[in-house]
């Protein structure tokens, strides 16, 4: 029965591939998770020698680490809101108006990604010294904001473009002012796209370390910049705990918006003929 054999082979192959992939993806996470709770872990033991919550206690009681968590949770939302305030009007303009240099500006938003970041930040630092922004919350916010601009402009702009003009015109025809049309129709229909942009911006700002370190250290340390000193000054279990904490906001955020991002509303809404 060669067909049965080949079917078995195929199943075995697929299973082996799935397991390899699983180990490849989950392995490091498991390693990280185990370390966060490991008292000590010596070669060649497959499992840690002892389990403990000591490292979690270290992290939560260390005032420096605690303040970095606070800083991150304070600064990142400010960055996202500031980014939205700056970028969403720009996104709308890119989507709805034709103006000279439109394409140039649109491509220009990628400029910050086109150069080595460190070079950009070094130049920025000299400007910051002149303006007295070094070691300030405002300085960190601006540095992190730079990395969010592309997400907060391009993704919402695509969402605005996808709102059919006739839906806006229908609202005006029904008697709505321009502002009202924007709020009840345009913004509402572009919301899923804006949300995706905001999530991307949040993650980009939350994870930004280079510029934040350069501008904020040593007074304003966020979670990613604190990681630098953790890796150098603490046992690696503390770094593992901190990595997990660093991942929490991203995971929570992605789970929260999953419905809007993946839900059919975005796709379904525009299929109206």
């Amino acid at each position: 029965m060669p067909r049965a054999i080949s079917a078995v082979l195929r199943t075995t192959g697929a299973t082996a591939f799935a397991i390899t992939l699983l180990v490849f993806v989950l392995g490091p996470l498991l390693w990280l998770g185990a370390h966060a709770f490991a008292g000590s872990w010596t070669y060649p033991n497959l499992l840690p020698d002892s389990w403990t919550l000591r490292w979690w206690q270290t992290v939560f009681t260390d005032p420096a680490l605690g303040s970095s968590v606070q800083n991150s949770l304070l600064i990142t939302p400010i960055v996202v809101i500031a980014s939205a305030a700056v970028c969403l009007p720009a996104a709308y303009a890119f989507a709805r108006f034709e103006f000279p240099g439109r394409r140039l500006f649109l491509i220009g938003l990628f400029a910050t990604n086109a150069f080595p970041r460190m070079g950009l930040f070094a130049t920025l630092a000299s400007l910051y010294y002149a303006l007295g922004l070094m070691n300030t919350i405002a300085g960190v916010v601006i540095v992190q904001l730079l990395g969010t601009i592309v997400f907060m402009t391009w993704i919402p702009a695509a969402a605005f473009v996808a709102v059919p003009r006739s839906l806006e015109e229908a609202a005006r025809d029904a008697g709505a002012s321009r502002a009202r049309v924007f709020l009840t129709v345009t913004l509402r229909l572009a919301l899923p796209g804006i949300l995706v942009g905001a999530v991307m911006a949040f993650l980009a700002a939350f994870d930004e370390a280079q510029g934040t370190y350069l501008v904020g250290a040593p007074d304003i340390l966020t979670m990613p910049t604190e990681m630098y000193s953790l890796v150098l000054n603490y046992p690696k279990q503390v770094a593992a705990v901190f990595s997990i904490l660093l991942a929490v906001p991203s995971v929570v955020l992605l789970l929260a918006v999953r419905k809007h991002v993946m839900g059919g509303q975005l796709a379904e809404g525009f299929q109206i003929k």
Partner: protein
Amino acid sequence: MTSPSPGLRLASLSKSLGGRTIIDDLDLTVERGELVSLLGPSGCGKTTTLRMIAGFLRPDAGTITMAGRDVTPLGPEKRPSAMVFQNYALWPHLTVAKNVAYPLRLRRLPRTEVAERVDAMLRLVNLLHHRDSRPPRISGGEQQRVALARALVQEPDVLLLDEPLSNLDAKLRVRVREDIRDLQQRLGITTVIVTHDQEEALSISDRVAVMNAGRIEQFSTPAELYARPATEFVATFIGALNRFEGAFDGTRVIPGHDVVGIRPEHVSFTPVPMPGGLRAVVDRVVPHGHFNELRLRRDDVTLSAYVAGPAPQIGSVGFAAVSSALVYRDGRLLERAEAVPA
């Protein structure tokens, strides 16, 4: 015929877009409660005209008056007009009832009154059972009726419809067309419909404005439009026409400098000689149900004829006679010539 304040009046309207003249000094008067179609090929300016009436485009020159009020400087939200969009433009995030309620909510009416009027309107268009459905989930014909309800609930002075039937399949089109006409008659609402479909325009309109290249070629009743097309363009655009260059002598087309148009139904054909009949060969027969379209050939000229009764054999010889012809000079109707009894 014109009353002191018609439902809608366009006076010397002009519009250029991108350096091209789209509408050129256009005048149009629609009486109160009248249904008028703007009919023409694509690019003739009919949609531009409708968008100017709705307020989405500002005319370069001219005025728009609705029920005696000059609305030219007003934006679409301030005009007493309501529009049904070609793609219906229903808001996908709102239910059918909320789509219809939107214009009323803007007017800050009490909640109970909004609910009552929405329900009454949905009953009128037979969609009460879809009150809580979302637009993407209902059929094209139903979406169309929601769009109509959303327009009518505003109790507009002027109702505008942009190609209202173009997204529906052929069967549904005839029914919805009758529904629109029926509603329009019952509510007595001044209505302008843009269409490129002559059958649609002729069947539901009180009057039809045939447009070409930004101008109105002719504005009259469907019957008049068909019987006495004012220009050669109208004659060829509406209905079928045999077009010859020459002159009409009461029996046949003779050499000349005018244009002679002969409707296929004004050609008769018999196998036996008749007075004024011209010998012709049957080239093709196209059955149309209750009549046949014959393609008749005489020397190198072909003539199309609509003839009732049994179809002649292809290749058979018979005699064709013309009962009436339209004669155009420089594109304008010179006369409608009836055949001279021989």
